[in-house]
Every structure is written in C-alpha cells, then in structure tokens.
C-alpha cells in the first residue's frame, strides 16, 4: 500500500520493491493486471513460461530505459514515451522468438505482440521507474517478473496437469487419466483463475486476522 503514501514521505527501497512484486503485490493475484496472457497462454507450462520470460524481458528493459531518461520526461508526454519504449522491446522479443523458438512463437501467436498492452508494464513505468533510480527500477521489474511468472506457472500447472495429465510436456498422471479437456479450453482458464484468486484472497484474509488477533 506504499503507493498511497505521499511521494515526499517515503519512497520504497529497492528491497521493498523487489519483495512486493513477488507476493504482497503480485501482479496477477493482487493487482489483477495482465489478465489477457494470464488466461490465454496458460493451457500448458511451456507457453506460459515463454510468455513469462518475454514479459520479463520487456518489463526489465523498459523499466531500465525509462528510469535512465526519467529526468528528461515531460509529464504530458510521458505515456507516449512509455508506450514507444514498451512497443520497441516487445517487437524485439517477438522477432527473437520467431527466429530462435519458431514453434513456440507460432503457438503463442498474437499474444507476444499483445504484451504491448499488458498494463503490468506501463503501470511499473508510471509507478516506479519514472520516479526512482535505475537500481530500484531493476529490482522492481525483477520482482514483478517473478511474481508474474509464479502466477502464470501456478495457473498453467493446474490446467496442464488436470487437462492433459502432463507438466512441461512430461507425463505426470497415469495413462488412465482421462484428461479434462475443458481445463485446456478457455473456460478452464477462467475456472482456474477464479479458484486460485479465491484461495489467494482467503489466505490473505486469514493472515490479516491472525495479525490483528496477535
């Protein structure tokens, strides 16, 4: 909740930024950002982790770039600069995937170019890297990337194991497992996200109650 503090009183340190991204302000489970890839590419672990890596690359690169030029930014042109920067790194990620991970790039289809509109990235530019130094920006981006990867990984694990009986393509459940086809289909994404969000919220509530009780 540090974002609600007036900027003058306290700016989060690098360590705080890093930790916050992973769980306390997890981009998917706490901030509900980046829902498009969260729902679309989590049918199996491989595409989910490729997406997480591509997003991490864009997030870290864009955060570093914005942080380096933060003193030159004009307030009313900052969103334009953010978008320009993000779009550039997304295009690079897209081309690199098509060149070196061709099959995966085909499988992810339009969702790699769509990283441009992942609010997670522009929100980090706005909240952190346009205001704080490069080191803090890197820690923030890495923390958020880990948080995003954890979220995608958890959803993809549930969907791939229940839907196909495999994990990262390796057989996990016995052959007799029928494979719940719906888990690989879009409804499975919504069901899994809803259930996991509920569990995350429930754990959060219980922890709060415990803290208040103590």
């Amino acid at each position, binding site marked *: 909740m540090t974002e609600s503090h007036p900027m003058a009183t306290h700016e989060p340190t690098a360590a705080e930024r890093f930790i916050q991204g992973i769980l306390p302000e997890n981009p998917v489970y706490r901030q509900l950002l980046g829902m498009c890839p969260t729902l679309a590419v989590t049918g199996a672990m491989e595409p989910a982790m490729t997406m997480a890596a591509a997003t991490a690359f864009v997030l870290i690169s864009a955060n570093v770039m914005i942080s380096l030029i933060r003193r030159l930014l004009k307030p009313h042109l900052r969103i334009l600069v953010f978008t320009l920067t993000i779009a550039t790194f997304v295009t*690079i990620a897209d081309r690199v995937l098509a060149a070196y991970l061709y099959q995966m790039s085909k499988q992810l289809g339009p969702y790699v170019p769509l990283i441009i509109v992942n609010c997670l990235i522009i929100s980090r530019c706005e909240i952190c890297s346009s205001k704080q130094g490069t080191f803090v920006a890197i820690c923030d981006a890495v923390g958020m990337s880990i948080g995003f990867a954890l979220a995608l990984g958890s959803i993809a694990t549930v969907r791939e194991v229940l839907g196909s009986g495999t994990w990262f393509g390796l057989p996990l459940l016995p052959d007799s497992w029928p494979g719940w086809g719906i888990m690989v289909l879009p409804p499975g994404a919504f069901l899994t996200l809803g259930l996991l969000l509920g569990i995350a919220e429930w754990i959060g509530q219980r922890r709060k109650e415990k803290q208040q009780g103590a």
Partner: protein
Amino acid sequence: MSETPEKRGGHISQAWLVILLAVLYGGALAGVETTLGPIIEKNKKDETLGKVPQLVKGAAVGETVEIQLAGVDGSFQTVYRVFADDAEKTHKGWVLPAGGKGFADRIEVLIGLNADASVITGLYVLDQKETPGLGDYITDQERFLDQFSGRSAERPLTIAKGDPAGDGNQIRPLTGATISSKSVADIVNSAIANFQEPIRREAATTR
C-alpha cells in the same frame, strides 16, 4: 491548458525526446530485423522443406527444386518439385503450399502430390488458429490428416455425413469441428483445381 507561452516553449523543445527516441528505437528495430529477418524466413522454409519426405514418400529434402507457377486464376505460387535421392534422381512428386479461411483464422497447409499430380500423397497443416481441443485436431496426422493420403486428385473431396461412402473421396470430419474439417478439404480442393494443370504443364515441358 493554462500554461504561459514561455513555459510551454516551442514544439521541438517539448517533443525532442519523443522524436529522438523514435529515431533511436526505429534504428534499433531496423537492426534487429536485418539480423533476424533472414533467420525467420529460413525457419519458415525449413519447416516446409522438412515436411517433404513425409508428404511425398521417397523424396529427399536436399533434392527439392523451387518453382514459381501461375495458377489457373493467375495468382503466383511457389511450388516444390521433389526428387528421390537416387542415381537417376527420380521425380517423385510435388509439394503445393495452400491456404484459406478456417473456422477461426487462416489455415495454411502443404499438399503432397505424386509425379503427375493425380493422387494426393500427404497433407500437413503449417499454421492454424482453430479452437483448441476441437478444431486444432486438424493438425493431428492419425486422427485427421492421414486419411487424405492416397485420395484421387481428379475430383473434389467432400465431407461425409455419417460414415464415409465407398466412392473414395469422402473425408471423415472431426467430431465437433465440421467447419474446420470442411475448410481443410476446401483448401485442398481449390488449390488442386488451381494448380493441377500448371503443374502438369510444367512436368511435361521439363524432363
């Protein structure tokens, strides 16, 4: 905006950073494209060539010849003439890339044909975005694509309602994906209709 003129400044003093970044990023992307573009093109072509032995039995990847052919409708298309890797370099057949509208998005396929383009020897789906779990089984060789092998290319394929009739050119559609199945059959039909004659002419004039 209630900014005073001296605070607002000229357009350039406002936008120089955006312009500079746009030029820098544009240059960076041009660099990336120059470096990676050929690799990406090669990936696409390698995928096509890698499928040659599967599409035409006995054909070797290294012996493939690329030919530009004009179709009956006047459109140009790269067609692959494939040969066996033996002493006589026997002409084994053709690989014809084709594409068309599927249920969700464009479907792109490779059609294998025998030497006189009278029999379909194989079919492979290069690219598709059909419904996962239903229509995307059009990429499955055993479930769907294998049944195209050995069909006559002399008359159009049709989609069977119920069990395929004995006349030999009915395709058994995928359960829950009739439109995707029909799209593939239509793409094959129209590509053959468009390129069978040009291919035969090409086969007659050379060798």
